[in-house]
């Protein structure tokens, strides 16, 4: 394993890919490997990019990669599709629009589907970030295909979030209402040549007025036309400036610490859950409780309380 760690630190593509699979498969090697890599983490800048399907995220991302490469930054992309059913298969087609970077050794793109990961797909993504970080990528970008609950969870693993909106999808207002505005740092109005783009920008700026504190710089709202490669430089400039602000103001540190805190909660709870499931055959027990409630009209809360106590007692005795 020391070997694998060393290969990853050297930036060996195959080893990085393998390590990600180890994370994805939750292989026994996962935990020691991540611990070995951990001291080498923390250098990368982590961006999240999200927006409704059809907003042009992948195309935009493709342009951002190109621009970052011009500055010699090594870029890793995690394209996450959390919508696939847990047990079924998945088609991961998001990298398609970034395929022209396939031959660039400074770009690594990895597609991930949800697989019923222990700890959710966010947990797995978090670990994949560590692999890329240790491997020396300067910029790690998490891309999600939509703006649902689990997407927000995944994208929130980033230091900074780019939210892509587009006029004419009919869902922009909904997005504003759904509270997704809360998570965005940089707002991108893509397809600016479309009707309604300016109006959308005004609306976004209006909503942001209520969000911004007076001391912070306002969240940038940038208009782009990704397919025409317009506005990309502005996005990069705004993102870098904002990142600088996050760093200088101590917010970056705060966010990272909050993430670590969340990670610990997640891991501890997941492990407890695992123990309970493994040792107490929870599935079967729950089945019996359901039966008691349905067939014998027992009271759910009282019932659970009783069983919970017995489980906790057993744990204590172990």
């Amino acid at each position, binding site marked *: 394993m020391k070997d694998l760690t060393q290969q990853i630190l050297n930036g060996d593509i195959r080893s990085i890919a393998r390590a990600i699979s180890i994370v994805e498969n939750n292989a026994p090697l996962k935990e020691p490997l991540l611990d070995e890599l951990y001291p080498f983490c923390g250098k990368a800048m982590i961006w999240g990019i999200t927006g409704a*399907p059809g907003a042009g995220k992948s*195309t935009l991302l493709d342009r951002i990669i190109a621009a970052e490469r011009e500055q010699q930054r090594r870029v890793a992309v995690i394209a996450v599709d959390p919508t696939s059913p847990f047990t079924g298969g998945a088609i991961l*087609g998001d990298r*398609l*629009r970034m395929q022209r970077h396939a031959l660039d050794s400074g770009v690594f793109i990895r597609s991930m589907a949800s697989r019923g990961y222990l700890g959710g797909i966010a947990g797995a993504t978090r670990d994949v970030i560590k692999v890329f970080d240790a491997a020396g990528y300067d910029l790690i970008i998490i891309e999600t295909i939509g703006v649902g609950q689990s997407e927000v969870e995944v994208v929130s693993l980033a230091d900074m979030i780019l939210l892509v909106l587009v006029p004419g999808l009919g869902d922009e207002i909904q997005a504003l209402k759904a509270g997704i505005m809360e998570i965005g740092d940089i707002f991108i109005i893509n397809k600016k040549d479309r009707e309604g783009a300016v109006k959308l920008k005004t609306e976004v700026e209006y909503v942001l007025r209520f969000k911004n504190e007076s001391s912070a710089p306002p969240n940038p709202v940038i208009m782009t036309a990704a*397919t025409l*490669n317009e506005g990309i430089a502005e996005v990069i400039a705004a993102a870098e400036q904002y990142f600088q602000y996050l760093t200088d103001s101590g917010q970056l540190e705060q966010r990272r610490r909050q993430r670590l805190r969340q990670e610990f909660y997640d891991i501890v709870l997941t492990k407890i859950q695992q123990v309970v499931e493994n040792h107490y055959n929870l599935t079967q027990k729950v089945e019996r409780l359901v039966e008691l409630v349905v067939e014998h009209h027992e009271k759910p809360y009282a019932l659970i309380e009783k069983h919970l106590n017995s489980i906790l007692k057993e744990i204590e005795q172990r």
Partner: protein
Amino acid sequence: MPKSTELIKKQQQWENSTLKKVLDRNPERKAEFTTGSWLPAERVALPRITTDEEYLNKLGFPGEYPFTRGVQATMYRGRFWTMRQYAGFGTAEESNSRYKYLLSQGQTGLSIAFDLPTQIGYDSDDARSLGEVGKVGVAIDTLKDMEILFDGIPLDKVSTSMTINAPAAILLAMYLAVAEKQGVSKGQLNGTIQNDILKEYIARGTYIFPPKPSLRLITNIFEYCSREVPKWNTISISGYHIREAGSTAIQEVAFTLADGIAYVQAALNAGLDLDSFADRLSFFFNAHNDLLEEVAKFRAARRMWAKIMKEKFGATNPKTMMLRFHTQTAGSTLTAQQPDNNIVRVTIQTLAAVFGGTQSLHTNSRDEALALPSEESVRIALRTQQIVAYESGVTNTVDPLAGSYYVEDLTDKIEAGVWQYLEQIEKLGGMVAAIETGFIQKEIQEAAYRYQQEIENGQRIVVGVNQFVIPEEPPSHLLKVDAELQRIQIAKLAKVKSERNQEAVKQKLAAIRQAALSPDQNLMPPILDAVREYATLGEICNVLRDVFGEYQESIVL
């Protein structure tokens, strides 16, 4: 149109007596009967057109609005469709001799197949061309290849169709330059370039530039040809490949007409006068297996285009309302198993095209699911057309299936389905937007998936594939392109490059760049200047790539 109430009553009586008795004894083979594209097929169709007024509105007379019955008054009583076999492979020399053979066999028009590097604007010596040179068509790098391709073929005597899209302007320019050398004036030239970029984004994949500059190239060609090459068909708006990608009949018509609308709109936006280009638009459809549905499809498409041109674009000249079309039999229906069965499939599809009133036809060869067609197979395919034309008798009357209750019913159903799609596409902001969001591709994929699933689970029978299977020997005598060919073609290209006037090439390429940068300029004249100096296809495309950028595939799986 409603059936008469009297008839409906009689039908119910029949259903309750005669039909019921039979069904009680012998249930039908299936619970539900549909066409190949899942339109409900009526057990017994009844007349729906009950008055003269309805007849005139929906069908009219051949050669008159709404052209349901055909675009010419006499159709095949006047002359047969153009029998045009798509051919081309290997080097220009080899293709040239295949064309001469086909013309000697009674073929009446040429149809040029280009290899993929040519279609995507790469020279034969480009790394990306590896393995592809001369494979699916002829390799053209410079005017030199085009001169060889048409050597000994008088361009004032043949009509030539070229399957070329993204770099259509360049290949057309080469054709014009060959004509010049033969002493044939542009006004005498007859032919078609496919020049239909939107369906490349949707289904065929040989795009280069993004939609906006691509549409500009297309309108440049419209404008140039209306002045200089008046008999040229400047575009062949193609549903063929949409259908090959697995669409339904309705989708084929809907997306093709939507493409047509987008081109007309683009030309009008560029300031062209409708009458200056609209009569040069032509179409290209697929002839699939469900004979009667296909006939209905062609008739519906014709009726709808006339209506669209008249009502949406305010056309007044009947010529601009006519949907003239080329047909190719459906390649995707050919099977590698028991390949001779394909001759029968092609015959049915040929009948569909002829009943549907096509202006020209390519019939596929039986061995195309295996490899490039052999000479013998191509001849059988051509003979199939000739037998239908000369022996079957179906050409003696115009639009022979008109008035078939079933065909008229299907024609109406297809039309209704197509209008629905057209409305939806308009809501999405037009065809370009609908393609960019992946809507069109998604719709086709769904149909393709369903079709294939039906074959997988045996719901749809393909003879020789999932039923009536026999053990087979691998076929012999297949035509293969020599692997050495790429090397030969590259050597030829190197020679042309070393013998041309380098300074002139540089200047002409610079002039193309200049023109590309100014949206108001027509790109045809500088491209023609450059090909005359033997600038390569790749060189010209690279200049345009540099200015226009490249399209990136957008699919939703």
